């Protein structure tokens, strides 16, 4: 099977000399959910500009489904990858939401009915039904973010790339967005690559995590990454609260074999742990408990 994304030794410096990417290597299988984490200025947005063919790398370092992004025709490229950037005002340039969401499909040369169908579907997916005739300057930031997402979804790309999609969304919208991404991934096999800082929402969106800090400094499951406090601290990251909580539970004598990453998983872990102890869980405090707890807290604190 062809890799959805394959980036090999990618380097990039901005014209002013800032070295933004240094020997970056990334491989993504079709249908995977990838999260890219890294401090501010790590090069995440710069990397995404490459995935879209906006910044060209001439040596074919960036391949989508086996073909070099620089060699792809525009119509082919937009069917394969769609990138949603963080700033919605830059991505909604037409006069109405309808025109913005229809922009990509029209450029793909689709029929009017098909364009209409896609716009309707994309707006329904992000929960913006009835916003067709709205103008961008009359919408809230979160609504504009959703519209910007719809404008990419309407092209129905096989690889969906999102730059900080959850930033500035209210909790419900954030949960909705996570569900939309997961549905697309599960039901339509869309490969997703997301840059985000929100570690507590990460586990739902990541099969695998890359930590980018100009170059790839680590790669692994969310659990692998967060279990390494040094790595986490060195890259301005943090571990999810739940993850730290279960590590602290261990200091109080809870014998959980696995540290859960999400609320759902924590239920499974707790149940398994308590069942293996014949239905009762004992927690204790002894002379070492608090020094162990402090050690864990300190290991993640900046």
């Amino acid at each position, binding site marked *: 099977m062809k890799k959805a994304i394959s980036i090999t030794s990618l380097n990039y410096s901005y014209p002013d000399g800032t070295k933004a990417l240094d020997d970056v290597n990334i491989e993504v299988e079709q249908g995977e959910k990838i999260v890219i984490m890294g401090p501010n200025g790590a090069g995440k947005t710069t990397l995404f*500009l490459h995935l*879209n*063919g*906006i910044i060209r790398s001439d040596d074919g370092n960036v391949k989508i489904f086996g073909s070099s992004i620089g060699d792809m025709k*525009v*119509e082919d*490229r*937009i069917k394969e990858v*769609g*990138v949603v*950037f963080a*700033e919605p*005002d*830059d*991505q909604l*340039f*037409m*006069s*109405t939401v309808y*025109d913005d969401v*229809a*922009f*990509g499909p*029209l*450029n*793909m040369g689709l029929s*009017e009915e098909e*364009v209409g169908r896609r716009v309707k579907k994309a707006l329904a997916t992000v929960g913006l039904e009835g916003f067709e*005739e709205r*103008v*961008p*300057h009359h919408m809230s930031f979160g609504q504009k973010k959703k519209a910007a997402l719809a*404008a*990419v979804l309407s*092209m129905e790309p096989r690889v969906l790339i999102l730059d900080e999609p959850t930033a500035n969304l209210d909790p419900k919208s954030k949960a909705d967005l996570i569900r939309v991404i997961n549905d697309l991934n599960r039901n339509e096999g869309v490969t997703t690559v997301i840059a985000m800082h929100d570690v507590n929402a990460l586990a739902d969106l990541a099969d695998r995590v890359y930590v980018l800090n100009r170059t790839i400094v680590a790669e692994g499951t969310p659990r692998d990454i967060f279990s390494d406090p040094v790595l986490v601290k060195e890259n301005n990251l943090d571990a999810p609260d739940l993850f730290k909580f279960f590590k602290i539970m261990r200091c109080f004598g809870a014998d959980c074999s696995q540290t859960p990453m999400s609320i759902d998983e924590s239920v499974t872990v707790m149940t398994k742990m308590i069942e293996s102890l014949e239905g009762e869980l004992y927690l204790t405090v002894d002379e070492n408990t608090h020094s162990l707890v402090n050690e864990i807290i300190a290991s993640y604190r900046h």
Partner: protein
Amino acid sequence: MKYPEIDKYAELDSVIHRFDPRAKIITFTLLIFSFVFIENLGVAFLTLLFSFFILLLSKIPLGFMFDRMKPGLIFVFPFLVIMPFAVEGNVLFSIYGLNITYEGVYYGILVFVRAATSIMFALTMLGTTKMDVTMKSLYSLKVPAPLVQTLMFSYRYVFVFIDEFISMWTAMTSKGFKLKANKHSLSVVGNIVGMLLVRSCERAERVHHSMSSKGYTGESRTIVKFKMQMTDYCLVAFLVGIALIFKMYEMSLL
């Protein structure tokens, strides 16, 4: 600060609102062009009255409309003041050796009235159609795409620009900046104007990226669905007829 939102009342319902947007653009442009060449002050006043009548028909709140007309009128106001002195002719009276002429006053008022008429027509036209519909009509009237796109983006991003200006201004005043007539103030204001320009250049680049990542290659493809009705043809005939009547009336006065 107010947004220069011209199509705020485009959702109202009136004869002018229902007028086919393409027919509206053509007839209104025709009216404007025929009225700006009127030489007779009396007839010019009649056309002003007529444009006011059309404005009333459109049901757009007058206060809103006069507010939007102000910038344009302020722009032509100097003509009203300068022309009485500048045009030679029969001296009405003189102040400090400067002659005010009858012709000067006549042409000053004429220019002002013509401008008011055109502005009122143009704004009624823009104010009764949603901006995106106006743009699409321009496309379908075969106005060159680069021109329409320039108009469209100017209108789209002027709001973003104002928001950016406001947020920078708020940031400055909340850090204690007060606008005074001194060198420091001037250099700060110069700085923020520069920043705004840089930001809009960078934004233009990002918008272009975003367009090309949606397959934009320079062609514009939009869905346009307009259909002329009988009432549209009647309205065109009526308005063009009025323009002709004014023209003929003026000629009969010569």
